[in-house]
């Protein structure tokens, strides 16, 4: 266990829920940064935490950063989803610290070797979306910051979206960065959005504020500020958790409702993706 008392004196607080292991603690990162060592090379920070609150789980994108999807984050989310699925919990809420719910896939990392990394990361990301759509409990996204690109898609993969009204954009950036999304991601959006909004989101790349998102049917409920948004999402999750629904029934219904999108996501994940299909500028 790393010595944390000197950091506590500086006002950095740790809770049991977010402290996973020596190597993964963010106190380690802060310590190393002060020593002038690049933390990326020495330890991997778990970017998301999973907390149990009674009958529900809370998955949180931690700390103030863009919460971009990397292969590691995808893998962390997948293991969190497995934990949720196999537990006796009855609902899942996801949320974020800071200004970003998620700003999408890690483009910087992908650009270093686009031809290999793009299809790889997009496939892992769609694997996450696929498992979200197949989860056996109701899901609520408490969107307390920008949700762009993959972050937008991840939010759309939930059953309900609660969002703060004062800050944050919803934005599918694909058209602006010349990326052709694979058929699973397109089918997900088509199945969740009305035809006009689907066109606006995919072909126009509109940035929706919370209020505009609510009007377009992207957001189910709006609240002032992140605290209220998360509180209300947890409250609703508990209401859903108390319903006498059987988890296999809920899962089966969602899978049948969105069968086309889930089938296409599954094909993308099983067969893999090809850079030349997605990156037209290369």
């Amino acid at each position: 266990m790393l010595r944390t008392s000197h950091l506590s004196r500086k006002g950095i607080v740790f809770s049991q829920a977010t402290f996973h292991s020596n190597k993964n603690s963010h106190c380690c990162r802060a310590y190393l940064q002060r020593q002038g060592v690049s933390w990326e090379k020495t330890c991997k920070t778990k970017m998301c935490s999973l907390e149990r609150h009674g009958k529900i789980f809370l998955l949180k994108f931690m700390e103030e950063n863009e919460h971009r999807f990397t292969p590691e984050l995808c893998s962390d989310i997948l293991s969190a989803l497995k934990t949720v699925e196999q537990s006796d919990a009855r609902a899942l809420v996801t949320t974020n610290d800071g200004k970003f719910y998620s700003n999408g896939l890690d483009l910087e990392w992908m650009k270093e070797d686009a031809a290999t990394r793009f299809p790889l990361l997009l496939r892992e990301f769609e694997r996450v979306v696929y498992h979200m759509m197949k989860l056996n409990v109701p899901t609520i996204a408490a969107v307390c910051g920008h949700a762009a690109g993959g972050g937008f898609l991840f939010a759309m993969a939930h059953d309900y979206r609660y969002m703060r009204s004062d800050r944050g954009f919803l934005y599918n950036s694909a058209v602006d960065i010349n990326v052709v999304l694979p058929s699973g991601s397109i089918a997900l959006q088509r199945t969740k959005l009305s035809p006009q909004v689907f066109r606006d989101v995919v072909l126009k790349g509109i940035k929706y504020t919370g209020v505009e998102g609510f009007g377009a049917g992207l957001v189910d409920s709006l609240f002032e500020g992140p605290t209220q948004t998360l509180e209300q999402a947890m409250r609703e999750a508990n209401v859903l958790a108390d319903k006498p629904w059987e988890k296999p029934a809920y899962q089966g219904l969602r899978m049948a409702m969105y069968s086309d999108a889930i089938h296409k996501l599954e094909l993308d994940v099983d067969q893999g993706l090809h850079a030349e299909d997605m990156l037209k500028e290369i």
Partner: protein
Amino acid sequence: MCSLEKRGNVYILTFVGDGEHRFNPTTFDAISDALKEVEESADAAALVTTNAGKYFSCGLDMKWVGESPHDRFDIGMEKLENMFAAFMKLSIPTVAAICGHAEASAFTLALAHDYRFMSTQGSSHLYMCELDHGFNIPKSMLTLIRSKLHPATLRDVVLGGTKLNAQMAFQKGIVDAAFDDSVGTLQAAVKEAEKLAVRGWNREIYRSFRLAAFPDVVEELDIHVPYRMLASYNF
């Protein structure tokens, strides 16, 4: 269980009596015969489906199913799918005048019509009760439901088990108009049917437009995938 009346070019199919108008082989046959009569009539131009009493229909007759569940669930599902397909393949416009509670497969039957008018009398509700009772909805039925509802409404109806009165149904775009009482609802539905009848549309073309506008629905209904009564899916 149903009566068929002709007013000019408009046929009116009514689920008669005060009961729950549940679907079992007798009623399935009666509805099927009525639809055949409508389809074969040379001058039929629109169909209105409605009900007497407090219930549009409460769906499948679970008492009949319960007498022999091992095969009757499958038979019941197949007959439901045939009924939905028959309505979707009808060559004339269809209007559902919902003058009572419509639950489960009866809600789906209302969705299989082109237009829906609903009465607020007696707090009539639309209710997809499968989730609350732990039953599956066959994929073909969900394809039909999905093809007729806004995405968020689909989620609220199927994954939320929401009971919708006429006002809520109108706001969510499930019904096209809501009325104060059953008499007014039926009157308005017949008037709408007459307006549609006057357009003089070619029946073959109307049928093919409907099938093309809601693709995969009839294809899936006709396949009759064996029904899994238990709530777990294996894809």
